[in-house]
């Protein structure tokens, strides 16, 4: 009996593969795997959708095919574009979705992201970014010394320590933050500078809409408070009076942030303790770093300045009642019952906090 089944299996494979060849499944060279999608604001109902499909060099002069169409819904635009494309458009290989600032401010961004989030063929690691002016221009842009916009953008956004000043937001992260009552969305903010693209800051959302764009400096604090472990090197201005400047560049090896709340939703109180460990890259100033007294003084000064920066950022956030960090999560943990967005805003409104920072310098490099 086993024999028959083995035989039947082989037979059916042969017969069925005959069928499949008639169906002609489209092989990899017949599909246009969209890598980048740019979405621009057209008017209140319409958006302009731009697709970038990477193209191998030998077949055409340009490295990418770029298609553009306007529609009110994303799928509509894609269907329209399909009639222009020489190949079958597929989203299996999507890597980055770009939105322009205006569109992000219009409050429809999450609908588009959710559309991709629901699509089973789209990967979860698709990056979401906001572009300053126009996503289409960025996609059509010429970057002569870069391989192609597709590899350039994906390589640029790949998480690595030296860009960790801004968050890396994937579709999942976006939906996670958007659907999380204690969190607001934060998305990296890109600027097209002609020959290159720069991650110039972080866009902070209030509910559905982009509210604020923070510079890299401030965004770094948000990253620090969000619990990012490895942050890039940072310059800290210790003092400045005329020509006499004291500044230090520190490579942060690890950073840790710890929250402890008083578990009281009505009178929320949060203790934030930040622990930084790093080594000094560069130092300009009067202190003798071999002297242990001066050394600990430096540590203290850095902690103080960081503390000020943190307090300043938190105050700003509380004032605007946006919370990309998730302060209220520390209260939700101890709250029984349904936690809503209003509760989070309420907590943010009443929040009192204390910050303590501790800077530890591990090494001063190989030179004095």
């Amino acid at each position: 009996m086993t024999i028959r089944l083995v035989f039947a299996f082989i037979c059916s494979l042969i017969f069925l593969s005959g069928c499949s060849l008639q169906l002609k499944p489209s092989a990899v060279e017949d599909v246009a795997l969209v890598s980048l999608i740019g979405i621009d604001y057209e008017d209140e109902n319409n958006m302009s959708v731009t697709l970038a499909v990477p193209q191998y060099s030998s077949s055409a002069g340009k490295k990418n095919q770029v298609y553009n169409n306007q529609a009110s819904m994303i799928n509509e635009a894609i269907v329209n574009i399909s009639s222009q494309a020489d190949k079958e458009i597929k989203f299996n290989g999507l890597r980055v979705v770009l939105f322009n600032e205006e569109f992000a401010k219009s409050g429809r961004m999450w609908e588009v992201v959710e559309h991709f989030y629901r699509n089973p063929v789209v990967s979860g690691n698709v990056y979401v970014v906001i572009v300053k002016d126009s996503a289409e221009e960025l996609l059509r842009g010429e970057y002569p010394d870069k391989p192609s916009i597709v590899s350039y953008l994906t390589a640029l956004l790949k998480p690595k320590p030296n860009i960790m000043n801004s968050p890396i937001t994937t579709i999942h992260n976006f939906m996670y933050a958007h659907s999380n009552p204690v969190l607001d969305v934060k998305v990296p903010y890109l600027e097209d500078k002609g020959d290159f693209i720069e991650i110039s800051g972080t866009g902070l959302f209030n509910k559905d809409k982009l509210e604020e764009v923070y510079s890299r400096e401030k965004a770094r604090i948000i990253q620090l408070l969000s619990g990012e472990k490895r942050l890039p090197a940072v310059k800290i201005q210790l003092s400045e009076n005329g020509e006499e400047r004291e500044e230090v560049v520190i490579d942060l090896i690890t950073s840790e942030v710890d929250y402890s709340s008083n578990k009281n939703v009505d009178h929320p109180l949060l203790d934030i303790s930040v622990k930084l460990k790093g080594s000094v890259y560069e130092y300009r100033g009067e202190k003798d770093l071999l002297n242990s007294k001066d050394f600990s003084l430096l540590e203290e000064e850095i902690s103080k300045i960081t503390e000020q920066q943190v307090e300043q950022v938190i105050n700003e956030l509380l004032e605007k009642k946006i919370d990309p960090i998730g302060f209220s999560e520390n209260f939700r943990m101890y709250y029984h019952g349904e936690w809503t967005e209003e509760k989070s805003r309420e907590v943010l409104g009443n929040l009192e906090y204390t910050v303590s920072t501790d800077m530890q310098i591990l090494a001063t490099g190989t030179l004095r």
Partner: protein
Amino acid sequence: MGLIKILGKILEKKVPVQNVKTQPVKKINKSNQISIGAIKQALDGVEDVQYKPVRTSEGLVTLIYYASFVDPVVLHERVVKPILQRQETVIHASEKMEDHELNRVINLITTGHTIIYLHKPALFYAIETFSAKNRPIQRTETESSVIGPQDSFTESLNMNLSLIKRRITNAELKNKDYIIGAETNTKISVLYLEHLVNKDDLACVKKKIEEIDYAGFLDIAVLKQLMEDHPISPFPQYNMTVRPDMAMHYLLDGRIVVLMDNSQSVVICPTTFFELFVPTEDYYNRWTTVTLLRALRFFGFFVTIILTPTYISALTYHPELLPFELLLNLQESRDRVPFPPVIEVLFIELIIEILREAGSRMPTKIGSTIGIVGGIVIGTAAVEAGLISNILVVLVAVSALLSFLPSNFLMSNTSRFIRYAFILSAGTFGMYGQVIALAWLFIHLLNLTSLGKPYLAPVIPRKWTDLLDSIIRFPMRFLRYKKGISALKNKRVSPLDEE
């Protein structure tokens, strides 16, 4: 299901060996009465039979023998010279034939004996004079190893027996001889260590051999296929080797070794799937090296059947699996290829098969030329011509090389066959088809038995100590247990018959 049943019936009718009844050897002489006339009649038309009259002091003697089997020098030394000196000595050394034993006499002549016919008092004696030339013991080319004994079996049963018996000088090493093959009367010998072997296995082997009714055996490989539990399976279910040390290794574990005259290989049964990947050199190397090599061979087997099918399913159904840079490369090289990936892969796999087949029949010098022509010219030219993509050439080459890793040649052939099933299923259903085919492969392996023992034994161990000698080969001092498959206590699997 109807179709399956019909197909199955057709298959089943053809398979069982017992149905192919050949006629028993025709009776040469009904009376079976021995006489020189009767012998001459029986051997009529056999040109190399010699009737050599020798006149001795005691009367006329005729020697009857096959010239092709008996070396004249041997005949002279052993028969003619002593018979001329003193007839008695030869008569004592030979066996007297009874009057009615004509068939036996004919048989003895055809196996290289010399019949001594004393005209007075008309008596027949047979004496062993087989002295046809044998191939000397040489190194093996198919299972060569750097370390370890270099001798290999030859085509002579006696020499093969001596090669094993000189390694195990122990009276417990028994051998039971059979004559099989209705036309060829081939001699085989079943060899085992009496105190180690599983008696049921032995009985099973003996029964299988006795039941076999087949006209002639070209090689022991024919016998092996007839003895297997699942004749239709693509997998070899007994191990085959030309190395005496391997035969010895398994004898010591309690396996049964079957030798056949005129056949260089010997069959080892029962065996497991994993053992077909293990050459004896594994026991001569350091355990670290061996562990590495075993993992390579064992997983190589699965990689070789999965590699090119994965190419098909990734390109046809799941392009998102591929890393971006690789995808661009593939698109570029696939762009000029006119076929879908399945045809492309089948095309290049077939070319590899053709190359291998063409090379295997040729003398070594021409064979290597064919390799160069095939590998370099066809490979690069096909890519240049846009018939196949360059990445596929790499994959196919790797999987072809991997398919030669198992130490058992039959296993490497099997892997090549199975690959085609995987290629077709990947072409039909992509990754899903591949996993379904993999499931099929594993169920098939799980259901296979070798002499009633589970074939996939060390993967699902029969004994925990089997794991000491599986993919990780522990240092030698740990390997002192018998394998589960050759355990003395009889534990058979019988998947089909639980009810």
